């Protein structure tokens, strides 16, 4: 009786045409959604971007280094940010690397001291006063990112957070000097806009370093 509500419940669907039309339409809608979020966030976060760039450029100018970290897709985004700063398509390169990169380090720390400490232990090993820690967490609540921010803050590193879902704990933490926030609740759309925010920071840092050089 209710088959009309679920025409394909038996898996009898055969015609791919309607699905393909829906998929293309969906892709278009997602593009509009991601673009709108990106543009709105770049506008709403412009003051934070400027403040982060001021602080980061001052550290780089004084010899500071950037450490990035995050989990899963944010680990790969951390790799992208580190590559942008250390090997930019143009402009000045600065020391930057991703702490979520080396499986030997990550598994050694994860196995021996626990996954919550995989980044903070590396901050202990590498971080110096004057360096920069940039933690990425779409939820804003990743334990290992929060732990590394606390460790970095106590050691005199500049701490910058990049978070979604309104910022979560990362935005509230007293150990985080600046937090760039994407106001959205889709992990995918958040990550896409976080990447754009990181680029905006990089561009602003480049401008400031040019002024230092000049």
């Amino acid at each position, binding site marked *: 009786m209710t088959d009309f509500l679920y025409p394909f419940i038996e898996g009898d*669907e055969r015609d791919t045409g309607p699905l393909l039309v829906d998929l293309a339409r969906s892709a278009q809608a997602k593009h509009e959604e991601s673009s709108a979020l*990106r543009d709105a966030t770049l506008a709403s976060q412009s003051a934070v971007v400027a403040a982060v760039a001021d602080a980061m450029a001052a550290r780089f100018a004084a010899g500071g280094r950037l450490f990035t970290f995050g989990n899963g897709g944010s680990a790969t*985004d951390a*790799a992208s940010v580190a590559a942008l700063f250390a090997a930019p*398509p143009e402009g000045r390169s600065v020391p930057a690397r991703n702490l979520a990169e080396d499986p030997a380090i990550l598994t050694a720390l994860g196995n021996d001291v626990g996954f919550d400490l995989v980044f903070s232990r590396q901050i202990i090993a590498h971080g110096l006063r004057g360096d920069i820690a940039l933690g990425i967490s779409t939820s804003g609540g990743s334990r290992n990112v929060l732990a590394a921010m606390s460790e970095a803050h106590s050691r005199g590193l500049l701490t910058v957070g990049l978070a979604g879902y309104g910022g979560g704990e990362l935005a509230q933490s007293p150990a985080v000097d600046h937090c760039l926030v994407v106001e959205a609740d889709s992990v995918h759309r958040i990550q896409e806009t976080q990447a*754009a925010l990181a*680029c905006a920071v990089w561009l602003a840092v480049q401008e400031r370093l040019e002024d230092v050089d000049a």
Partner: protein
Amino acid sequence: MALRTGVSRLDDDADLAGTALTLARRFASGATMWCLAPEWPEHGRHVAVEFVHPVIMGKRALPSVSIEGSGAAARLRSNARSGDILLAVASSSDPTVCDVMQRAPAWGVTSVWIGAGPRPPSRSADYLLWSEEASALGRHDGSMVFAYHVLWELVHVCFEHPGLLRPVDDTCDLDSTCITCSDEGRLGEVASMVAPSVASVRTARGVEEVDTTLVDPVPPGSLVLIHGGVAITRVEATL
């Protein structure tokens, strides 16, 4: 240099739709997806983690692996099985990707190439998800990420349509009247010579013994077109 307004867009959203349906069908048939991004390894890893560990609870985990470092082609050759998927995120000039894209049909692997800037030749992959708009920041600004995020999302929409995921017989049968095959032959990759002018050749159907009289010598790794059990011509590297 400046950040563009909005996320850069693929040249055609319909490409994403067709790619997603094919990927869902392949996964439904047991495929593994091999991700390759030699210039931008973060993207290969991001695609792999996306499919293996979905960000949305309840979505199925799909086998996806990032292949990195030197010897990527050799490791793909030994790991990829017929019916698998190769997904590259790379510019059209990446030599490793150009090489494996050309070999993919001989391995029976469906190929997807995501990138930006100058387009590769139209038949260099089964599916091109391309944005010709080149941006110096395109690797970093979320545009590539957007393309494979949406691909993942659409693949999972396809899983809500099980009737459309049944295997489609899209392979050519040499014994029947496949015009494509009888005209052009099938791509094979020479594995080894098993006798004078007889090679063991890998094709989408498996390993075949092929007469190489017309193309000798063909060292291992050579690509040949096979017709009626005979290698009729060598296929030179495109790059």
